[in-house]
């Protein structure tokens, strides 16, 4: 193995790896569950000591649940809309010889756009323009391949 191949392998190790299981949903559900349990426990405690607060607490819990339900519904309606939008932007050529490069160029474009949110330097703009030009060339190449 020469130095070039060694460096190539080293670079591959640096590539981001997506987790096999996304734990955020589980954590979020657990947090919500804890919050609701604590709220119910507080209501029960206060109800035993101050019965006149029961109506207000129940109303509050209903309002909270309603709000959460509304938010969950809104998230659910947004999520399917954004997923196809992302899928649309990611172009995948049918030619397997070009599909790896298409993924790489698309990932580079997204990374550059994310970097530009932090620093809108002319250097990043130039890199993005060149990456998009390479994407256009690859599309042209894929069209030629038929």
């Amino acid at each position: 193995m020469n130095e070039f191949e060694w460096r190539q392998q080293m670079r591959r190790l640096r590539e981001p790896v997506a987790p096999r299981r996304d734990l955020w949903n589980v954590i979020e559900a657990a947090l919500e569950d804890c919050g609701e349990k604590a709220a119910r426990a507080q209501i029960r405690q206060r109800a035993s000591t101050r019965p006149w607060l029961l109506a207000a607490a129940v109303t509050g819990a209903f309002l909270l649940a309603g709000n959460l339900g509304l938010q969950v519904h809104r998230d659910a309606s947004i999520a399917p809309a954004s997923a196809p939008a992302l899928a649309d932007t990611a172009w995948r050529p049918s030619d397997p010889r070009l599909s790896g490069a298409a993924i790489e160029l698309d990932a580079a474009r997204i990374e550059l756009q994310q970097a530009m949110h932090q620093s809108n330097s002319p250097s990043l703009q130039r890199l993005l323009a060149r990456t998009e030009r390479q994407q256009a060339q690859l599309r042209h190449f894929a069209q030629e391949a038929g």
Partner: protein
Amino acid sequence: MKTLRYAPLLLCLYVSHALAGTPINLQHAATPTANITISNISGEVHVTAWDRPMVQVEGQLGDGAKPLAITGSDGKLSIEVQPKGNGGSWFNWDGDNRMGPTMLDLHVPRGASLDVRVVSAPLMIDGMNGGKISVNTVSGRARINANIPALDIESVSGNIELAGHAAQANLQTVSGDILAPVLGDQAKLQTVSGHIQASGGPWRQLTLSTVSGDVQLAGGIATDGKLTVDSMSGSVQLQLPAHTNAMVHASSFSGDLRSDTGKLQKSEHGPGSKLDATLGTGKGSINIETFSGDLRIRTSN
């Protein structure tokens, strides 16, 4: 009886020979500065310069390929490996599947200009002098040893290795590495994730850009020369010779910036560091920017 014992072996040898492809042996007269187009999908392409006014093609034609011919006139020739039947474009995926690898071994006039298109076939060009070379490759490695005025290589994942000298070089890859130890005075190197290792100069204009590939650059700039390096997350190492005359401006948003020359300024609020330095007369211009890639500038004593 002995012959019968060896019969299966002989049969295997015969079958493998029959499947090995058709031998190629073609010749065509050519002017010393002819324009030659070569295309091949898989297999290999070797181009060697010689001092005869002739193009010679040898090798093995892959199974499923159309009979090969040298077409065109003495000043403009074409050698294109294509699949049998009407497969549309010369390198379409179906045609690639239908055709076995073709080995092309070409001899061409030393001063000819070449336009080579390959898909997965490694390409080797050796000894060209005077003409222009243009290469388009998908995954095939391109090795060019030539002394030419202009070189243009576009590669997807194939590595580019350049020896000899190209006064003007435009080398571009998506993930392939670029190795160019003797870059001419005007060069444009571009990659997304490939590694770039280049040296040479003095450069009148050198533009280098990488998204995530690392860069090692060694060389100086000419009087009034301009060197620009843009990197997002790739680390950049620049080795400048002693007696460099240039204004150096380097900056990084979150990468580690180190330099043998100039004074490093770190941002008081938030990330970011930059450096400005004047080397010698300061006539040339060196501008390097990275986003998160590390940057190291060395000057030889």
